């Protein structure tokens, strides 16, 4: 086990290839580091400039007056190897190679990448990349990426990704939302993953007090046994969601045995993730929704869901999705049913899903929501709550936000909310900002988020 703190939370940073030109990757990356208010010294390395963005520039890394923790390398491909050697010679502890054009591009690139790997192994230099958008750690003000992120603040979600531009796209998407923003505080993209890997990252986040929830986008696991053993420990306090594409890539291989042709890496990985209680997201939507639920909500105590809805159809849709995902419908206590009857007409018997639209007609929106939702939240058989609520004018009431905040606080149960089309939708959403209630666009998204949450937190 090794400590990747110098890479993820460095005390000092140099950028080889920093420039004052905002059209170049090295220019944007350095600009982002400066504007992000990195907490330690920043050293632009540039042969000709004396100063970049107000920071004194040095012609080579050897000229920098201290041994830096981390060096970003933003150079044309043919100069990268030499720069990595300079990092080793100058006593740097970590390097992040932004440059692309290695194993992802060609056989020649693969050879160059293997040489980088050998240098890292021989010297102990921590290496991220090549072919990465870079690394962000809001806690230390490190916005080390050539993607121009609009804003960044510390948060409980930590990302580890093994990809290039996808990470940047996901981060931009995450940050573009006006409300319900996923609080990602760290995003470590290792690109082609020549050296630092998911196991190093798990060791780091295990000891990181800020990290509450972990999101991994991985194309492979380097050392599955060690990874799963570590994940088993980490998930006890920090749930893990994995997005690993390529479910359909491996067809049947020719093999002497049936087992040989069935044992694709994907299928074995799928079994192992279930075995160790790591949630597997199917796509980027699933991934972000699960992380949002996990970081905003308390841990579920079981897998029995109570559904409250003001549309019978949405209740049935939710039931299908939840049961298909392995969750169960809660059986309501007699006291719950009695409380629910108070807002329904004599001819309608409450059930799960609890459809109380008609209660709005009878008792008005405030009382119907308050009595109905309180009964559902209070039921001891309900471990998780899914609400699909319609928001036309006649269902609206000014205290909606206060009611849901109070229920969330009083019962401390995981709740997923879908607010369906209507005048009140934006106001309800705004009223719940910061309340720890995730709001989802569709019933599917909400149901998937709850089921992935159960996978990631409960005993597998």
């Amino acid at each position: 086990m090794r400590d990747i703190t110098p890479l993820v939370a460095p005390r000092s940073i140099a950028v080889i290839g920093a420039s004052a030109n905002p059209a170049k990757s090295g220019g944007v990356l350095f600009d982002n580091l400066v504007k992000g208010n990195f907490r330690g010294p920043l050293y632009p390395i540039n042969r000709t400039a004396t100063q970049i963005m107000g920071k004194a520039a040095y012609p080579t890394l050897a000229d920098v007056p201290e041994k830096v923790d981390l060096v970003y390398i933003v150079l044309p491909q043919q100069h990268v190897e030499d720069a990595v050697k300079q990092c080793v010679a100058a006593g740097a502890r970590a390097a992040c190679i932004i440059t692309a054009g290695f194993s992802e591009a060609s056989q020649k690139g693969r050879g160059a990448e293997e040489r980088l790997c050998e240098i890292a192994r021989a010297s102990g230099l921590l290496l991220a990349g090549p072919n990465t958008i870079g690394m962000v750690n809001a806690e230390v003000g490190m916005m080390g990426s050539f993607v121009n992120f609009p804003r960044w603040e510390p948060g409980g979600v930590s990302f580890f990704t093994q990809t290039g531009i996808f990470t940047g796209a996901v981060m931009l998407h995450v940050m573009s939302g006006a409300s319900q923003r996923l609080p990602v505080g760290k995003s470590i993209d290792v690109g082609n993953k020549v050296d630092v890997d998911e196991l190093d990252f798990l060791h780091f986040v295990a000891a990181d007090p800020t990290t509450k929830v972990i999101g991994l986008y991985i194309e492979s696991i380097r050392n599955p046994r060690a990874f799963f053993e570590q994940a088993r420990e980490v998930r006890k306090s920090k749930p893990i969601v994995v997005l690993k594409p390529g479910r359909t890539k491996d067809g049947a291989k020719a093999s002497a045995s049936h087992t040989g042709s069935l044992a694709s890496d994907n299928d074995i990985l799928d079994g192992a993730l279930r075995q160790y209680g790591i949630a597997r997201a199917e796509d980027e939507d699933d991934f972000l929704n699960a992380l949002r639920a996990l970081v905003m909500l308390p841990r579920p105590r079981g897998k029995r869901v109570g559904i409250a809805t003001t549309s019978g159809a949405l209740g049935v849709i939710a039931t299908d999705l939840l049961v298909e995902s392995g969750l169960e419908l809660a059986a309501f206590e007699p006291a719950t049913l009695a409380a629910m009857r108070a807002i329904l007409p004599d001819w309608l018997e409450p059930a799960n899903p609890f459809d109380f639209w008609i209660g709005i007609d009878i008792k008005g929106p405030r009382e119907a929501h308050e009595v109905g939702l309180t009964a559902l939240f209070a039921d001891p058989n309900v471990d998780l709550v899914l609400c699909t609520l319609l928001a036309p004018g006649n269902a609206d009431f000014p205290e909606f936000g206060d009611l849901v905040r109070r229920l969330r606080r009083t019962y401390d149960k995981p709740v997923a909310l879908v607010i369906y089309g209507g005048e009140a939708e934006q106001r309800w959403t705004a009223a719940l900002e910061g309340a720890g209630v995730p709001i989802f666009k569709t019933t599917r998204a909400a149901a998937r988020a709850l089921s992935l949450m159960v996978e990631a937190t409960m005993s597998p």
Partner: protein
Amino acid sequence: MLTQASGDIAMLIAAARAQRRNVLSEPEAKAFLRAQGISVPPGRAVAHPEEAPTVVRELGVPVVVKAVAHQLTHKTDVGAVMFPVESPAAAEAACRTIAARVAAHRPDIALDGFLIEAYRPAQPEWIVALRNDPHFGPVIMFGLGGIYVETLRQVSFRLAPLCDRDIEALLSERPAMQLLSGARGRAPPDRRAVVGVLRRLSDLSQQPLIVRDISEIEINPLAATENGVLALDALIVLHS
């Protein structure tokens, strides 16, 4: 020439290595399973068709007749498995038919002989396997077996060794596993016997000799009835 195989895995491995093959024959694999406490149907391997009737008279009818050749790992594909065979004379004829089919489809293969076993139908057929995967290490697979196993893909994997919870998950993860609880009026199979096979393979996965030499142990089909389980076919592949 066929001899009755020993169940000692070290000897079986040594014999296979000496012959430069990395697949154990079905009688060898079954001798090993029997030594591990996993039941196989009563039966005997013979070198020549004319020896078949004696074996049938010992076993009683019906029997299944199969080609024995370690290179022939997908016997059904070339018609090298015949069942139910209802008389001693029919068993001898089945041996000759199988020999002719193998000669026609796979002239590259030399038959070692024929395996005559008591015929035990399996409905459904299950598959259980231990694989020493090059990337993940030892893994256990369980699922719906038979010849359509790749088509239906009702199988699940877990990293070995397995705990009780892992075994329960393997026995319930796919829709087809509901058949373990009985279906269409059939008595549910002996679940504990199925669990026992999984646990045995899990134990084997931790033995140094198995890890060092064996790439796969596959039982397909495994019959599971209310009276227990029976490995109807088995394949052991060594690391090449």
